[in-house]
């Protein structure tokens, strides 16, 4: 497993400027296998995020907590890395750059910071790039296996499910693995696979690259990449006849409308949302409506008390009582 994780890390280094990637290659293997983010900031020390903590990397590839010892990232490093990330073709990633990130082969994402220019009330481009955040995507196959028994409803359908989690607790990973399980089917639970429409607004679930999903989502999945939830819902319902629609990070009023559309069509829904508890969600008007209408039958609450993706609780949506066992 560690060997595979190091391989993924080495692949990501191909997209980083030579000077920085040479340093990152010297990082100890136990870090290589666990690095989640590599952060390059203009004129600041090279920063990595690993095992719930952040570290700096020295010129010799050593890991330190002392920011003064970190290797300084130059503007040239950022420019070269950006060139490699965009495959020397900024023009081919215009839309992605407007959204603030580029998806790499393998489903890794590179967030972009810099000077944002507007035209006609929308982001036109980002120039003078000052920071890049390379998030390494590591598929965690099987992380949702223990959850499947809560969301499957017999015969052969699922409960509408909402995954609630603070940032960086693995909600997208859990959702992705649930999609994979639902589309593959689970013999153990006597559950056959369902057709799943995935609205991948932020290109995180499938990690599409040149029309090919970079993450394993099973055989019965149709992906709308980069599509917003309202449009995506209509498109899927009209043309793809899904049994389940999956989407990441609902929150605003339009997303709630999309959820209602899905329910009207008798299709099941599985989604994620930022938050730490149901009470926390109730404080947001749009989500409070969904909770009061008892639309979701299962709430899965995550945190990172025992590492990323810890399942804190599973709550029944009608009675609001924990059903975790």
């Amino acid at each position, binding site marked *: 497993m560690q060997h595979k994780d190091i391989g993924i890390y080495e692949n990501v280094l191909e997209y980083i400027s030579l000077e920085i990637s040479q340093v990152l290659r010297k990082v100890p293997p136990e870090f290589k296998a666990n690095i989640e983010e590599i952060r390059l900031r203009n004129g600041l020390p090279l920063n990595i995020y690993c095992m719930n903590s952040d570290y700096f990397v020295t010129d010799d590839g050593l890991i330190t907590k002392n920011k003064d010892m970190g290797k300084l990232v130059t503007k040239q490093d950022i420019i070269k890395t950006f060139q490699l990330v965009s495959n*020397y073709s*900024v023009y081919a990633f215009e839309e992605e750059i407007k959204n603030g990130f580029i998806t790499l082969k393998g489903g890794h994402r590179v967030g972009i910071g810099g000077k944002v220019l507007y035209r006609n009330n929308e982001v036109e481009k980002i120039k003078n790039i000052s920071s890049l955040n390379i998030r390494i995507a590591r598929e965690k196959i099987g992380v949702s296996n223990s959850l499947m028994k809560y969301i499957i409803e017999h015969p052969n359908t699922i409960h509408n499910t909402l995954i609630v989690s603070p940032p960086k607790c693995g909600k997208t990973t859990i959702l992705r693995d649930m999609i994979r399980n639902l589309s593959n089917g689970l013999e153990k639970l006597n559950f056959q696979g369902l057709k799943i429409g995935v609205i991948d607004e932020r290109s995180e679930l499938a990690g599409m690259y040149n029309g090919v999903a970079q993450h394993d989502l099973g055989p019965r999945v149709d992906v709308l990449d980069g599509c917003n939830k309202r449009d995506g819902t209509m498109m899927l319902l009209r043309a793809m006849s899904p049994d389940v629609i999956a989407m990441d990070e609902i929150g605003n009023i339009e997303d709630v409308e999309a959820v209602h559309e899905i329910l009207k069509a008798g299709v099941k829904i599985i989604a994620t949302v930022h938050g730490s508890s149901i009470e926390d969600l109730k404080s947001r008007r749009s989500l409070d409506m969904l909770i009061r209408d008892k639309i979701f039958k299962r709430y899965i609450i995550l945190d990172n008390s025992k590492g990323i993706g810890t399942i804190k609780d599973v709550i029944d949506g009608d009675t609001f009582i924990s059903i975790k066992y």
Partner: protein
Amino acid sequence: MGFVKILSSLLIVFSSSLIGYYYGNRYSMRLENLSYLEQCIRILETEIVYGAVPLPEALTNVYLKGNKKVSCIFEEVKMDLTSNKDGDLFSSFHRVSSHLMEKLNFTKEDVELFLSLGRLLGSSDRTDQEKNFKLILNQIKILKDEALAQKNKNEKMYKNLGILAGIAIVIILL
């Protein structure tokens, strides 16, 4: 003896004409290659501005669609780019441009135009790329006009000079 003289005189005239022809021909070769380069840049423009094809792929397409005599330099750039992976497009153009002057009879200005492609390609959005392409195509038109004028002026002169020099040498030797 007379036969040998005639033969060697003919040889002298022939070889000096050949030299004249070679020098004269350089002007028309430059013009021809500039036209091919223009064609390649237009293909590249279509690939980038209308197709939004990523640069390495676009460069290969230019190689396949353009006249191979010139378009092969775009494939060379692509090979350099993918093998070096140092994130610097301009240095790939720079490395490839080093033998352009002799290979394609280009002048310094022509090579500079080729290098300016390396400075602008891929670094901005499509609207910006389109503007830059327009500028480069304008410049290449100016260079072509200049190459044509030079060709008209010099090509015939060098060719004639070759023949005449050959005859002159023969007369002196005789």
